[in-house]
């Protein structure tokens, strides 16, 4: 075989490809169907969000940042609100904190459901996609009921939340949560034990702990390698220290582990929402905060939260007596995951690219900002 010379060739995967989850482009150098080199090309979805934020007041940034990572807009709201509150020294009322946690966790479930649907679709299983979106629909109904929006919520504001939940929210949420675990069981029945699904995922896209740490991989992708790191537990923000929940981890860091971790996380999130609804106190939903006159003191800070994909952070540098931030830097976890991907891909087949990309749950707004 040695003297049989074959050529490597270059395939563009993306930006307009059915399974690159947005406009990501991979330049794949291939030897037959085996990948020799993979090179991500980004920037197709760049919207200059950071720069836009620098030209707006703190309160105005929040609706813009809804678009930062649109699968989990609540997290985007939360991370910026958190940063501003730290900067201004605002104390958020108890009820608002609980509402935030409810929304954040529901949003995490919704985001994981999108991931589940697209993953199965990328692997050629059509049906779980629609099942997952059926459940996501229920969550979006809850959001719509509360803030009138289904994708870009602008719900979590500086100092609290925009509106109190309507009366029918709690019963509807409870109904959703009572059946949700069974629904997850259903998905698992379709995929988890399926030999084809296992063959497509096990030992595919293995990410070592060293690689994960070196590239700043976070969230479920990090936990799938066996590192138990979750900002909700390790750097608690809001009121996450009041809830009991497990942090699922994997061992091998392959696609299958990432799948298991995310499936488990959906159940844990549901657990948190149940507790939060149970403990939900009465009271104010927002601290006193006037966005029109608010001027931040000089300083800089970084606030971070655990969103569904990993660590989401925002760094703000403020000028004294200015309504607008001097510099805003956003950290999206998908950016790091995308960077680690070429190392993971080499030696795999082209069919594995979609499996790995899906299991890392990369979405492009998070990468390009």
């Amino acid at each position, binding site marked *: 075989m040695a003297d049989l010379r074959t050529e490597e*060739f270059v*395939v563009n995967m993306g930006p307009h*490809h*059915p*399974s690159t989850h947005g406009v990501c482009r991979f330049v794949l150098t291939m030897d*037959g*169907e085996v990948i020799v080199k993979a090179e991500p090309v980004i920037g197709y979805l760049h919207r200059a969000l950071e720069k836009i934020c620098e030209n707006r007041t703190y309160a105005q940034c929040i609706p813009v940042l809804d678009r930062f990572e649109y699968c989990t807009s609540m997290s985007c709201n939360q991370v910026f609100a958190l940063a501003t509150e730290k900067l201004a020294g605002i104390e958020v009322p108890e009820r608002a904190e609980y509402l935030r946690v409810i929304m954040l966790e529901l949003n995490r479930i919704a985001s994981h459901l999108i991931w589940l649907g697209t993953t*199965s*679709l*990328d*692997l*050629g*299983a*059509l*049906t779980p*996609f*629609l*099942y997952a979106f*059926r459940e996501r629909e229920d969550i979006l109904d809850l959001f719509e009921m509360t803030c009138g929006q289904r994708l870009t919520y602008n719900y979590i504001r500086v100092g609290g939340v925009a509106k109190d939940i309507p009366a029918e929210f709690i019963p509807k949420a409870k109904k959703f949560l009572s059946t949700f675990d069974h629904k997850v069981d259903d998905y698992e029945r*379709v*995929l988890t034990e*399926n030999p*084809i*699904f296992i*063959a*497509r995922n096990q030992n595919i896209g293995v990410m070592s702990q060293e690689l994960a740490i070196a590239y700043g991989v976070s969230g479920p992708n990090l936990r799938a390698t066996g590192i138990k790191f979750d900002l909700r537990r390790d750097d608690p923000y809001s009121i996450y220290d009041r809830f009991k929940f497990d942090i699922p981890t994997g061992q091998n860091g392959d696609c299958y582990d990432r799948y298991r971790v995310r499936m488990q996380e959906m159940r844990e999130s549901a657990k948190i929402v149940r507790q939060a609804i149970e403990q939900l106190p009465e009271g104010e939903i927002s601290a006193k905060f006037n966005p029109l006159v608010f001027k931040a003191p000089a300083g800089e800070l970084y606030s971070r939260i655990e969103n569904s994909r990993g660590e989401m952070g925002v760094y703000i540098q403020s000028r004294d007596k200015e309504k607008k931030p001097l510099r805003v830097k956003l950290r999206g976890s998908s950016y790091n995951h995308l960077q680690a991907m070429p190392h993971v891909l080499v030696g795999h*087949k*082209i*069919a*594995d*690219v*979609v499996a790995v990309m899906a299991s890392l749950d990369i979405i492009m707004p998070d990468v390009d900002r």
Partner: protein
Amino acid sequence: MITTGFIIASAIKVIVVVVAVLTGCAYATWLERKLVGHIQHRIGPNLAGPFGLLQPIADAIKLAFKEDIVPERAERVTYALAPIVAFIPAMLSFAVIPFGDTITIMGQQIDMVISDLNIGILYIFAITSLGVYGIVLAGWSSGSKYSLLGGIRSSAQMISYEIAYGLSIIGVLIIAQTLSMKELVAQQANFFDWFIFRQPLGFVLFVICAIAETNRSPFDMPEAESELVGGYHTEYSSLRFAMFFIGEYANMITVAAVVTTIFLGGWQGPLLPPVVWFCIKVFLFMAFYVWIRGTLPRVRYDQLMNLGWKVLFPLALLNVVVTALIYRL
């Protein structure tokens, strides 16, 4: 002895079968969309006509009105011929399928089969294998890398299931002692004589290979849309695309008909006329195809090769030896 009557009878049968198969293909797409729709908790096509029954016709008209795009890098002649090469064999293999008992019209004995070749099964294997050429040529001639990968996958797929496909029915042949499809049906008069009961392993192997043969999920790697965009037919548009599409469904119907004939008793059944029984069995098998598509993820093509060579092939050989021994003892 070739008479004019024979030619006319043949021509009528051919036209009836062609129309039936083409209609069958059209409604197979409808069945698939409707059934997958219900599997996925949605309605499926429901606007064109009652229950969306006119949807296939609407699709056909739409495709006919689409521009035929030939990429500049394509190898033009091969590119134009490939869809035909994929389509014709899919139709042709229907020639030996008996879809009913012999009937007598105007004193003429007419077999409800276009051609009762004494090597019926071999003919089917030979003809259906030709369909791969259409796909490989389409993939190569498009000049697109995705098409090329799709075409290569198709040939890779072919060499992994073809042997097990052929061997899986040897067991049936040992028992039946004939290659004629008509004879095979005649030997399954009783329900428990159906070869599915006498050759269960052969049946399972045959069905798995048949799904691979027709490029259907979970073995739809040559056109895996989430990996290769459209695979071998990425560049095709208009009616040329439709040819691949119809070819695929015609293949499915053929395989369903072959399975019906070889394993499920052919057109035989109580009360209802033979043709109706035949259609019911084919329909059920088509529904089975759709059910699989709605359930399973796609395998990777090296995994199919492993499956074909390390599982299906040894099992098929085992089936042959065991059947031969049982038959002899």
